[in-house]
């Protein structure tokens, strides 16, 4: 049965859902809610989470020694290796369980890895691919804020075209980043033995449901969470949810899942809004909008989004009831 907000509030009225107060993420950041939504779901379903973090906003801001904003077992190793690290933890769990050395063997352990888009799309991709291919039972969640925000907004493979970054700025001559965002969902879905889904905190029920599926899936899961960075997307502190809604309504961030090759769009948007609305709502595209070629760049993005949306529907239809294994 799908969880709802009232149930979760009742359950967590007087306890922390894995992550606690006192972290130093920017006001209005979406990342702590990504962690909170995922871990609340796990705990409410009777799982005991063990979390690994890649270096990034969520990591540095929650564990400044001697302060930790986690009340569950937590390990950070480095930037590019959270998947390998949690694969070691998960393997140790199996080894110790076999040898009767688990402290509390009756509990259901759930292994989570959180990484930003830098630690996932870019520097951590090999480690992630390896861990998923090996089939470790873990849930990898990327909080995708479309750049290296922890270090001040550098370009990543997840940065969209025309977004202002410090390492590929929109200049007088060059238009900034022109490449499309890497399609991490398709990359991960190509690993065969995996449950892959996109989520957004603006659709909490869909988010909870997908974490539940990921927990119950017999194998690794990869969840891409849209995670606005209010600071470097140049929006007001209270806009993370508004921007997320707009991303879904424009088709910029389609909500869907791929389970053993079967595609399913979980949020059908009747008529997509123009992506320009998403772009105009954020200061990070201000310099792009000033350029004479703005319409051309936005037009190309629009065309891509429209085609991807159509393609998703085709895939949904074509793969219906035809799991690949």
């Amino acid at each position, binding site marked *: 049965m799908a969880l709802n907000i009232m149930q979760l509030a009742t359950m967590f009225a007087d306890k922390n859902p894995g992550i606690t107060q006192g972290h130093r993420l920017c006001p209005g950041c979406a990342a702590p809610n990504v962690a909170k939504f995922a871990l609340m779901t796990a705990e409410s379903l009777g799982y*005991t989470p*063990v979390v*690994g973090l890649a270096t990034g906003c969520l*990591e*540095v801001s929650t*564990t*400044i*020694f*001697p302060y*930790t904003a*986690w*009340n*569950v*077992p*937590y*390990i*950070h*190793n*480095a930037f*590019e*290796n959270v998947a*390998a*690290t*949690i*694969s*070691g*933890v998960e*393997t*140790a*769990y*199996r*080894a*110790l369980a*076999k*040898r009767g*050395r*688990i*402290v*509390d063997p009756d*509990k259901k*352990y759930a292994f989570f890895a959180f990484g930003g888009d830098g630690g996932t799309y870019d520097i951590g991709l*090999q*480690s992630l*691919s*390896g*861990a998923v*291919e*090996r089939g470790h039972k873990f849930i990898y969640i990327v909080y995708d804020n479309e750049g290296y925000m922890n270090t001040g907004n550098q370009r990543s493979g997840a940065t969209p075209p025309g977004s202002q970054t410090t390492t590929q700025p929109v200049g007088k001559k060059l238009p900034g980043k022109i490449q499309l965002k890497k399609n991490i969902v398709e990359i991960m879905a190509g690993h065969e033995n995996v449950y892959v889904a996109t989520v957004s905190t603006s659709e909490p029920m869909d988010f909870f449901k997908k974490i539940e599926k990921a927990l119950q899936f017999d194998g690794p899961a990869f969840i891409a969470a849209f995670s606005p960075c209010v600071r470097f997307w140049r929006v007001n502190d209270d806009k993370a949810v508004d921007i997320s809604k707009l991303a879904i309504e424009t088709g910029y961030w389609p909500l869907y899942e791929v389970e053993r090759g079967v595609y399913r769009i979980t949020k059908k948007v009747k008529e997509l809004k123009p992506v320009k609305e998403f772009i105009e709502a954020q200061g990070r595209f201000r310099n792009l909008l000033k350029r004479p070629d703005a319409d051309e760049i936005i037009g190309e993005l629009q065309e891509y989004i429209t085609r991807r949306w159509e393609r998703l529907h085709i895939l949904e239809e074509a793969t219906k009831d035809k799991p690949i294994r």
Partner: protein
Amino acid sequence: MPEVKNRQAVTGAQAIANAMRQINPDVVAAYPITPQTPVVEYFAQYVADGAVDTEMIPVESEHSAMSAVVGAAAAGARAMTATAANGLALMHEIVYIAASSRLPIVMPVANRALSGPINIHCDHSDAMAERDSGWIQLWAENAQEAYDLTLIAVRLGEHEDVRLPVMVNFDGFIISHGVEVVDFLDDEVVKKFVGEPKVKYPLLDVNNPVTYGPLDLYDYYFEHKRQQIEAMKHVKRVFKEIAEEFEKISGRKYDILDKYKVDDAEYIMIALGSTAGTVKYTVDLLREQGHKVGLVKPWIFRPFPKKELQELLNGRKAVIVLDRSASFGAEAPVYEAVKSALYEVSDRPKLGSYVYGLGGRDIKVDHIKQAFEEAFSGNINTDEERYLGLRE
């Protein structure tokens, strides 16, 4: 592969794999690289055949191998990996993290030249690049020592006063692929010797959640480094204690330094690893000719055996240091450390630095004789790095 027991002619890789079989670690994560590959292959076969019930992670790189064993060790598992050369270099970032997280991982390293240009043969440039990483470094002369030191390493790293990862160095190809006679202990004896893993702050104790790897800024990082410095200070004492225990079960004696005919020696050579065997042979030859020569082979290079070398080398006529790696723009690593140690002794010997064997270049008796003879004739210069077996 035949079942290995008691006295067998085996390669060093087989000897180490057999040590790993007897240790039966909770988790092994490894990626193959020449010349370490047979260690992983033999061990994987043990796993496949059920000779161990270790959970093995066939990772996609050495970086992930070290990352996974860090995760496993933090979780509360006894974890091992093995590597060589570029694999160790790829691990480098996480090698430091393993040590600073105080995780007693044991890692045999089949020493091989670092690229580039790429080379697969023995030298010590891989391990020397990690000498300040916070790992204990043990050095084996042959397959027997590689086996013994791997067993000792488990106990050493896990000791309450130490809690550090241990690298067991054994020369690539020369030891890893060379066949030698090795005396193995019985499985039960090893099992008793290594005992149950001793864990501290296990991540999987979900009832007492801990945080590993926090952001440690200027207000605490220094204190954590000081703790690592302190842990290293306990290593030699603990090693001696464990070596004593090991002698009782094996009859084989280990110490900080392996001393060969040094009591009356006027000229002492220092060498790590398999070369020490060739030096011992040369020492015998030169002694037959009436030269008072000897060899010191550190079994431990990190922590550096400074006090032990000071005591031993004070008042000798000359000390010749062999290095199987270069330090570009500075003195070779073993030489530099020995020279620094001898600054404090009352009667400093003359010192000579010889770099040899890079990229697997053979070291022969004649080379060692040459270095000794230069010292006998007074042709020795503290400030000059010389090369054995190099074409001009």
